[in-house]
């Protein structure tokens, strides 16, 4: 019985380690390749695991081939604006769907949730034409403005789940003290839900930073490009310069890695929250 248990344990750890290796290997390969010079990267048989020497200049060289500092600034502007829009707007709306009773609440909630299932491709063309008719094609408005209108069904859902766990007596006590609902939202609900807001903020950050299709459609010239678009442009120009492509990709990944490191506790809880009562 004991022996059987031990074999089971060993099997578990073997599976875990294989899984972890599969997850980490591509990332290791990314860093490895980013630090190699061109002659070494094409060496094979045996596989070279560690760069020799470490070519740190790849990062500088790759990033100066294209105006990547401009792309980073562009991405940062769009991401920051969307982050603010999503966090404020989704927490605002989630308040209505969790702690207030009003006519049509369930109807609108179902409508908004159903939009989560709608592929972006279905609304993409008319939305594009709309922005174009407004003369805003080639600006960042199409990328930013939608974030302020509800901040995405997913985020509203996530925050609503969280708000519903806060005791209702809080609101009632505040009402007795003469507080209005906007004040309850700003001074009671928001401070209590900061961990959920961090999750929403992190998701907003990642989604905007990593978005490819929307900037692809709305950026009319390469001065407006985001990091994701810049990478794609770069790939077209230096098809076989893997060390540069990997260096640039690693730099694009870095902000996400930092966000993950800072908020991973919140992240994992946040994702779990969406699935449990989905």
């Amino acid at each position, binding site marked *: 019985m004991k022996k059987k248990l031990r074999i089971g344990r060993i099997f578990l750890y073997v599976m875990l380690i294989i899984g972890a290796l599969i997850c980490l290997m591509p990332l290791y390969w990314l860093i490895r390749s980013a630090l190699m010079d061109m002659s070494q990267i094409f060496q094979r048989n045996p596989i070279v695991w560690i760069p020799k020497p470490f070519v740190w200049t790849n990062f500088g060289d790759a990033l100066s081939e294209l105006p990547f500092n401009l792309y980073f600034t562009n991405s940062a502007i769009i991401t920051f604006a969307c982050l603010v829009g999503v966090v404020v707007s989704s927490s605002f709306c989630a308040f209505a769907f969790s702690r207030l009773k009003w*006519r049509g609440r369930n109807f609108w909630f179902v409508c908004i949730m159903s939009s989560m299932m709608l592929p972006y491709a*279905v609304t993409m*063309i*008319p939305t594009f*034409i709309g922005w174009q008719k407004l003369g805003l094609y080639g600006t960042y408005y199409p990328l930013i403005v939608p974030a302020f209108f509800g901040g995405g069904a997913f985020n509203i859902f996530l925050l609503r789940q969280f708000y519903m766990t806060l005791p209702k007596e809080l609101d009632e006590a505040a009402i007795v003290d003469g507080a209005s609902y906007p004040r309850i939202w700003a001074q009671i609900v928001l401070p209590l839900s900061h961990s959920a807001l961090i999750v929403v903020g992190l998701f907003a950050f990642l989604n905007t930073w990593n978005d490819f*299709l929307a900037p692809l459609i709305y950026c009319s010239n390469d001065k407006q490009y985001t990091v994701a678009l810049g990478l794609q442009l770069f790939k077209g120009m230096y098809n076989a310069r893997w060390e540069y492509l990997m260096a640039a990709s690693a730099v694009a990944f870095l902000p996400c890695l930092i966000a993950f490191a800072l908020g991973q506790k919140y992240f994992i809880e946040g994702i779990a929250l969406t699935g449990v009562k989905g």
Partner: protein
Amino acid sequence: MFSAARAPARSLKRSGLETQQAHWGVIFALPAILGFLIFTLGPMLASLVLSFTDYKPISTEINFVGLQNYLTLFKGDDFFFYKSLRVTIYYVILSVPLAIVVSFLMAMVLNKNIVAKGFFRSVFYLPTMVPIVATAMIWTWLLDPDMGLLNETLRMVGLPTSKWIYAENTAVPSFAIINLWTSGGTMIIFLAGLQGVPRTLYEAIDVDGGNAWHKFLHITVPMMTPTIFYNTVMGFISGFQIFTQTYIMTQGGPNNATLFYCYYIYRTGFNNQYMGLASAIAWVLFVIILVITLLLFKSSNSWVYYAGGED
């Protein structure tokens, strides 16, 4: 007597509160409602209208052509339509079950009493953080037929190599593998679901003399059906929307083997400027996803178990 006198006053206050909530509720929900109308419902209807026209952004003329666009698609006049549909369905059927099964197994392993649980959980989730463009770059490099790590490893251990994304028959499976690499989120949701299964149920199996397999089959799977259902629906929906990977890695090739549906819409609408036709293609996708989701929901009655039956 006393309480009877107080009752009307209370209900008056209540109703005052109710009108306040009714006001503020609409105001607080307004951004989301407007967002739904402006960015979802409106464009959807506009897309439907456009799908009956020959709209091209470069020409000023716009004509209603009736069902022409749909006929072009279904009669096979646009060769790419059925091709793209087949390729996308193949991808979804391959990648969704693969991601579900593997994520579920890994979540079960993580749910056991193991050391460094947090570390492994983070490691499995890490790939989903990588920007899709960077993911596409990394995998293009890993899957390179001549120089890539994968083929190099296969050669080393004496296994046959593959052309991966550069051959028609392996391109879609390659994308399914990449999708698997980024399905850490699915695993985390499974893990949360597993942690919610009451221990007492497993103890009951112990009492009855059942083994681990019985526990899996009679407790874990039934209790997890809501989570499996959620992940399946979300997997299907996002599977149909695969775009960036094919845009960067294959541009729909080789020989249209990865002409995924959203890429096909993009190409028709933005590269070729047939926005009317592209809207029709998009509406077909909408109907497909709607039907699949409804079928999944309908079938869920017979296989999804909700504890307490509250939903």
